[in-house]
């Protein structure tokens, strides 16, 4: 191999790395959501996403860059999820078992939208009352389950569950209203 060939390979490799990094940053939040759907323990999901990242890097040569990156990355995520459950236990994953492909399709459909809606979500989060935000903090920052939160607050698990659900629905409604409001402004 001569010096020109080596330089060409190095340049190609650098291009490939840059392209991988760009693609990964774009799809990472959606992939994380997809992995969370299959492994509701956040710590497991984060470990699994690391494995997906490693596999994506390992197999990046196989990726056909003329096609969308997300479906290909989702396919790898599905293989890794299957490995995860095979390694850990053989139980069917509740609700994801049959719906995994439908959710993967949804992930591809709404990915662009979700990226745009993240700003709105941030705005809506700030509109919540302090108590609602603190409750979300217990769930997501302190990683407490509804039962633990209920014990901490001296209330019932059902009340915590319902309240958390309402806050999430409020956030989603707020994002949709803001999105349609902005669309109307644009019209």
């Amino acid at each position, binding site marked *: 191999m001569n010096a020109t060939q080596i330089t060409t390979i190095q340049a190609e490799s650098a291009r490939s790395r840059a392209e991988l990094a760009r693609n990964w940053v774009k799809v990472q939040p*959606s992939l994380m959501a997809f992995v969370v759907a299959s492994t509701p323990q956040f710590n497991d999901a984060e470990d699994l996403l690391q494995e997906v990242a490693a596999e994506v890097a390992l197999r990046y040569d196989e990726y056909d860059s003329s096609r969308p990156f997300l479906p290909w990355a989702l396919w790898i995520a599905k293989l890794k999820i299957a490995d995860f459950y095979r390694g850990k236990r053989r139980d069917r994953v509740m609700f994801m078992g049959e719906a995994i492909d439908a959710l993967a399709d949804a992930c591809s459909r709404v990915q662009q939208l979700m990226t745009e809606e993240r700003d709105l979500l941030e705005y809506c989060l700030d509109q919540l009352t302090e108590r609602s935000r603190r409750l979300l*903090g217990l769930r997501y920052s302190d990683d407490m389950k509804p039962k633990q939160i209920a014990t901490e607050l001296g209330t019932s698990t059902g009340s915590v569950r319902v309240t958390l659900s309402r806050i999430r629905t409020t956030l989603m409604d707020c994002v949709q209203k803001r999105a349609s409001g902005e669309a109307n402004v644009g019209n």
Partner: protein
Amino acid sequence: MSEIKENTALGDIDAYLDGEELTSEEAQRLEQWIKSDSQNADQAFRRVFLHSYLRQRFQTRAISEAQIQEMRSRQEEPLTLPTESEIEIQLDPTQSVEKQKHTNRILTWRWFLLVGIGIVSTINLAVMFIRDFQIPYDEEKAFEAIIFEPAYAKKSFLMARKAAQPFLYEGFDYSTELLSEKESEGINGLEGGQGWSGPWVDEGPAYASIIKDPKQQTTGKNDMRLFGPLGFSDQYGNMLLTKGGQFRSGSNTESVAVRHLDLQQVPYALSDTKGFGADGEILWLSFMAQSYDNAGEGRYAYLDFGNEESSLRIGKLASSDRGNWSAAGQVNGTEINTASSEVLSGQAVLVVARILFRPGAEEVDLWLNPLLNQIPDLDDVDLRLMAPDLRIERVKIVSQYSTDFDELRVGVSFVDVIPASDHD
């Protein structure tokens, strides 16, 4: 199964992602809701995305002024759940613009943190890529056999075998009393083994039966099964474990026995939305068989794995003139890609098959009478063929030439389907 509304479905997703176990009915209803409409699937994914986003958002601990205030008040007063009216967000256009301006300042700082984390992750990914993966991925190398010391290899193999078991099994182990008391004809209603959703259905017109002692139940002096029940030992004396009787198909006229799998018992990794046979997975199966004699010329007796549209057939096949043990794909009733072995169908055979489910056609490798104390080598296959895209819903035993089958096992590894005795 009753349909559910969006609120219930999203509540179920919340419960699931908050670490609660859904009942199987709730899970099925939710699956159905997601699959029934793409808008439902989108809503479900948005909800999951929200959980994932909130987790990442709160874990970054980007502290806004509002959160500093929250920390102060946390120290001052205990938290109580917000009331329903407190949860509502009132979108006031004027206030929101002003608030947005204020928020933008905070957002810049938050997004600076988030983007920083993104950059660090990307650099990590790039470093990983540069350090470890610059060598081109070589699939042949990746699947190259690892050579272990013989003693270590044997020990590992035996340890794996101890833990192994098929997820689908039928040993045709039915007591004489049960068979004599049974009122239905053929093997109708027999429901032994494991991994099945129901009993055998013997569709006739000829009926199959369970044979206990082939020596006493031969059908003529040329019957090659008169030497004894089906069994197998390899050249080193390792014996396949067997139980009870064996299946005998009808002769002259066709017998068709069908039994459906319980898809809930199939390992999750092997299933996808279309059923059992997810791409990228590997399945192993084994069974023993022996026919009345070696006759071919259109005679048939085979196991059929799949559904009515497409399946894999293994046995004595009409499309194999010589009548030797063969395998073929089946599409809409037609046998395709028939591969025939040199082993006569009058000889007892242990068939071990490995199916690699791939996008489109599946790769099927078969070994006849392999050694039991090691995983058979892909370079030593007796038959290899491409089968149509398989979704295995049932096993069907179809025959118009008297043939015995026994010890049907399906699993995810070789040791799952070859439970040999301990002295190998």
